[in-house]
């Protein structure tokens, strides 16, 4: 077991080093920018995974929360407010919306929760699209410049990447602490045995509500990074497709794992960026991947690949041991472990 955890620590340290050194080994700024996208989408997916993976509550309205944060900060910036005010204001708008969403959606669980979050997300989309005097409709809102906190120029790809990396690492630490905390354990309890948790004296609704708030906070942070990255926000960002994309990141990577959503985010962002360079049909591919993963690898790519790898390895070993056992001279029994 200690060997396992050593290997794990080495792998983590290597991943960390690779991330820190990334601008030096990536072939160009385009790839550094894609990496920045992976980072903030990973934060978004980590946020959604708290609900989907640990809470068993599948939200199809998270792009609405993501988008409303982005809209709020873009709008406040366009009003001429400073970056700090805009970011704080966006966080307040976002958490307020999350609280309302959670209060409404938590009237149900399971499929009911999906339907209500979907409808709530569509409301935000509808407002973004139609409330033209506020949101600019299809034209969206532009953000003029990225901020320069503590002298770091976020306008440059490297500056933005490192800022996103720091925030991403903080998010990973927060989620890790959360998952291992009594609160995290209680949330998993409400996912698996809500009635028992209730009987044990836990306030199931409150646990779910605060999980929604934490998820909303991570989503909001990702939304702010997003709007500074693209410097533009339009209704497309709040659409059901966008909600489904982030859900795909969680489900593809493996819900209720820490690494899964990160791998999922990397996969979706990279595939989307690379593939859309060659074909126009990203949405078709997205749908097909979705269907394929749900049917073939329902536990997600990270646990699913691990399972297939183990099965394949076992089958390979078995075949090899059979071949060895059957070949030529009878040898002293092979250790087939």
């Amino acid at each position: 077991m200690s060997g396992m955890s050593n290997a794990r620590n080495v792998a983590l340290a290597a991943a960390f080093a690779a991330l820190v050194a990334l601008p030096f080994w990536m072939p160009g700024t385009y790839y550094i920018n894609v990496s920045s996208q992976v980072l903030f989408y990973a934060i978004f997916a980590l946020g959604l995974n708290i609900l989907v993976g640990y809470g068993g509550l599948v939200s199809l309205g998270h792009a609405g929360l993501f988008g409303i944060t982005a809209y709020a900060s873009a709008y406040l910036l366009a009003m001429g407010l400073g970056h700090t005010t805009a970011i704080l204001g966006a966080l307040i708008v976002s958490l307020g919306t999350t609280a309302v969403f959670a209060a409404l959606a938590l009237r149900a669980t399971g499929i009911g929760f999906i339907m209500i979050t979907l409808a709530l997300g569509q409301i935000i989309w509808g407002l973004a699209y139609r409330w033209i005097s506020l949101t600019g409709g299809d034209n969206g809102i532009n953000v003029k410049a990225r901020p320069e906190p503590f002298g770091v120029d976020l306008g440059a790809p490297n500056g933005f990447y490192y800022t996103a990396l720091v925030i991403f690492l903080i998010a990973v630490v927060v989620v890790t602490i959360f998952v291992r905390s009594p609160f995290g354990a209680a949330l998993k309890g409400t996912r698996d045995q809500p009635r028992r948790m209730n009987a044990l004296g836990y306030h199931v609704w409150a646990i779910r509500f605060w999980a929604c708030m934490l998820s909303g906070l991570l989503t909001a942070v990702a939304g702010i990074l997003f709007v500074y990255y693209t410097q533009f926000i339009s209704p497309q960002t709040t659409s059901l497709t966008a909600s489904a994309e982030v859900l795909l990141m969680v489900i593809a990577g493996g819900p209720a794992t820490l690494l899964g959503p990160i791998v999922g985010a990397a996969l979706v962002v990279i595939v989307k960026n690379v593939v859309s360079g060659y074909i126009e049909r990203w949405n078709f591919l997205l749908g097909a991947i979705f269907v394929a993963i749900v049917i073939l690898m329902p536990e997600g790519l990270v646990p699913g690949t691990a399972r297939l790898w183990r099965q394949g390895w076992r089958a390979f070993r078995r075949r090899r041991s059979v071949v060895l056992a059957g070949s030529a001279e009878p040898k002293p029994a092979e250790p087939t472990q």
Partner: protein
Amino acid sequence: MNFWLVLAVNSVTFGGLLFLLSAGFSLIFGLMRIPNLTHGSLFMLGAYFGAAFIIGVSGVQMNFWLAAILATLLVALLGALTERFLLRRLPGDALAQVLVTLGLSFMAADFCLMVWGGDPLNVETPNGLGGFVRVGAAAFPIYRVAIIAIAAVFAAALWMLLDRTRLGAMIRAGVDDPDMARVVGIRVSQLFTIVFALGAGLAGFAGIIGGPMLSVYPGLDQDMLPLALVVVILGGTGSLLGSFVGSIIVGFIYNFGQALLPELAYFVLFLPMLLVLIFRPQGLFGRYIP
């Protein structure tokens, strides 16, 4: 006065379309316990298939009604295939089934965009239904009145099917208690396919007859799906009466909202849904409490 009257007729017309769309959605939800997120896509596919048949496939142009029937059958077949070959593989896993329907809806949307492009297709009003009917000083397009009539006929037929036939009794039994229905020898999984095909066909039919009114464009699916969702949450799942009343309510709110508060139309639409969720979570006529 005229303005209000015309708006009211438009609301009922739109409510009729919504009823055709949401009755199937509601039955599928009631029976299979999943919101079929391809329902908007089936509506759109019906509309596109119909429009394509009318405009002409490899030179063969069709009459509106023939195109409508063919498109409906095609969409019903797609629905049956989806149920039989995809959803059936995930028995009892509602979440996975929902996600599959979501994935399929993206594929369908992109497929339509690929085949028919981004420009809206206009569907001609069928022959003989083009003009206006005058009542006093107000003039109503005949086609809109015809949609109301068609929706009313379908509502009656569906009610007959569900309330007066053996198949309907089996479907109702499946909605109320699928396990018990299985025990008494009803092949519930076969019902799933039938209801899915029926619901898909209704959605496709709504799409094609809605074509001349709404026109056919990419994104039609995402416009219609939330409406079906609102209708079903309002009216309650698995209830035909619920879909009917819910559709009319949503039809009115949608049209009046568009006319009076265009910027907030979408928002106003969801208000009654939120009220129902808070005060009567099973919906106005709900039989099954999720």
